[in-house]
């Protein structure tokens, strides 16, 4: 029944070691989002894809990259994780991005940086 699936559920990486988080969706939605959520804070949008068009938020560090090889999959790459990048990473989808579209979230990947 899961519609937005994130793997792994928990990820541990070392300081500076590249890490990739995965997201897949069965909703056939056009838009896929990556959010960062730190403890007790609101989710913060990093970037999103509308189909193959990548939209980066102005304050997203260059350390964060994303790939969307097809409609169903989207990846978050953190090139050189720092201690401050430890957070929950949430993937979400929406049917479109023209407004009034609710987002469907995955369960998240909790990233720890040692």
């Amino acid at each position, binding site marked *: 029944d899961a519609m*937005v699936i*994130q793997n792994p559920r928990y990820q541990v990486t070392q300081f500076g070691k590249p890490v990739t988080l995965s997201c897949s969706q069965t909703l056939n939605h056009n838009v896929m989002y990556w959010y960062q959520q730190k403890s*007790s*804070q*609101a*989710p*913060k*949008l990093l970037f*999103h894809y509308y189909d193959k068009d990548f939209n980066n*938020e102005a304050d997203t560090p260059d350390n964060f990259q994303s790939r969307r090889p097809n409609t169903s999959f989207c990846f978050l790459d953190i090139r050189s994780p720092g201690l401050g990048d430890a957070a929950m990473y*949430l993937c*979400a989808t929406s049917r479109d*991005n*023209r*407004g*009034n579209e*609710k*987002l*469907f*979230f*995955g*369960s*998240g990947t*909790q990233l720890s940086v040692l």
Partner: protein
Amino acid sequence: GESVGLHLPTLSVQEGDNSIINCAYSNSASDYFIWYKQESGKGPQFIIDIRSNMDKRQGQRVTVLLNKTVKHLSLQIAATQPGDSAVYFCATQGAGNTPLVFGKGTRLSVIA
């Protein structure tokens, strides 16, 4: 810029009582509003939404009220249950292709 905030960071209610969670927003151009529930260690789960051309919308045990005059949004949960314990986020979106902006969240604790 747009900001979305909540009046109370924590709310404790007795099981069976009604809960009211409030949210203020600053962008008068906001025209879509959503409430999400997030349980510990999980992603946000959609509860209910409302568009700016409405001032009230009801779901199962939940009601969202929108007051555009004072830019205020509230979520009412009837007969609160232990399973309602979670952090609740309001989120708002402007017209067109603008991102959803989340508020800070209110933690609801239900006392059995």
